């Protein structure tokens, strides 16, 4: 796309509702990268993320009639993407596995500065190493802003389970960060 007056997303949505294929493609191009980012957090690898993305967009265009314009379209698409990702996971894997490899007794403490220095791609790697169950819950609560009640519904667990899995997820992530920090010190030193 060159420097032409940008068509708003709302306009594109309107055109999509009338079945204009060109508008569909433009809408996809506008949002694909962001939604890929969402799916990458929930998936085990890139291939899985692309499957989730595909399913998500198919659902978006199937249900676009239902979007009334109340709220941002991007937010609406994001929700669909999240649901699609979790649905995909439930279909292709056994029940959300939670495996505790490290039985950390104490909550590890992480240096805020150290943690902040980590780049996005590093954090993404950390999240991917989580067990699926922890990964889902951490993503939903910490990053996508769902409540424990909503998480329980989507994932199919109890609210209590959601809370405890969130705690464990945080603990594991902190451990991983500490390990990474240690390694970097050793390397640097």
């Amino acid at each position: 796309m060159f420097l032409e007056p940008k068509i708003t997303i709302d306009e594109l949505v309107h055109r999509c509702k009338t079945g204009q294929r060109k508008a569909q493609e433009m809408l996809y191009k506008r949002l694909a990268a962001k939604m890929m980012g969402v799916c990458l957090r929930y998936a085990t690898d890139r291939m899985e993320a692309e499957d989730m993305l595909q399913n998500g967009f198919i659902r978006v265009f199937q249900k676009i009639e239902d979007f009334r314009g109340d709220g941002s379209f991007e937010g609406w698409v994001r929700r669909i993407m999240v649901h699609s990702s979790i649905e995909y996971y439930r279909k292709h894997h056994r029940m959300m596995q939670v495996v505790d490899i490290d039985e950390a007794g104490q909550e590890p403490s992480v240096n805020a500065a150290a943690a902040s220095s980590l780049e996005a791609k590093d954090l993404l790697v950390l999240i991917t190493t989580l067990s699926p169950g922890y990964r889902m819950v951490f993503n939903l609560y910490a990053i996508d802003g769902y409540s424990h009640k909503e998480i329980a519904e989507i994932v199919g667990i109890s609210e209590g389970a959601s809370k405890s899995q969130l705690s464990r997820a945080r603990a594991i992530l902190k451990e991983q960060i500490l390990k990474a920090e240690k390694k970097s010190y050793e390397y640097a030193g």
Partner: protein
Amino acid sequence: MQDKDFDELFRNKLGDLEVEPSKGLWDNITAEVVIDKKDRSALPFISIAASVLVLVAAGLFFIPKIKPDITKPSKLIALNHTGGQKTNTVVPKAAEIKAVAPQIQQVAVVSLPVKQHSVKQSIKKQNSGLPALNTDAIAQQQPRQIAPQTAHNDVILAAVNPDPLAQAAITPTVTAEVKDTHIAALTVPALPAQTIATVQPKKPRIRSFGDLINVVVAKVDKRKDKLIEFSNKDDDESLITGINLGIIRVKKEEVIATNK
């Protein structure tokens, strides 16, 4: 680090993460989405409308056939039985056939080709095993029943047993009448009287399924060589003798047999 801050760290760095997906992904998506859009098109409605039109046209086509047929059997029988004690039975016979005819229409008859065969066969076989609708009236004579040999034994046209000489004459024509009535019965229950005027006196008899197709096609296709043509020289068989699709034209040559 507090939980809240910890979450926020991840949220800030990963919340708006943007990664370009593979190039071919959109094609996969359109494949599914376009098909979906087609479902919502007017295609189903058009197909339904088209089907209804075809049915109505077929029905309208068959209306002219009905009226003349009902009067014919009675006339025939009257012709064949002049004088003698049989005359008094002729009139009730005619009335009965008329009465029977409406009954034919109440029955839902499905397969036309099968009926053609069975009607003819039953005439030939003189099957008297089928229940007679009007045995009372013809108890005196030997009822020879012309009936379609279907599983349900739906329709029965009772013909008075004519003497051998008249038999040959009556058989082919009654066959035709029964079949015509059959075809008529298949489609339209109503018998508008005014359609007789529209019936051409020289309308060719439909003797087989192929003939039926020929007539229907002839109504639509005004070319010399029709879209599809069936043989109509043999009552039992319906063979394709010609096809004309513009690009492809196939026609069976007419072989004129000479008897020596």
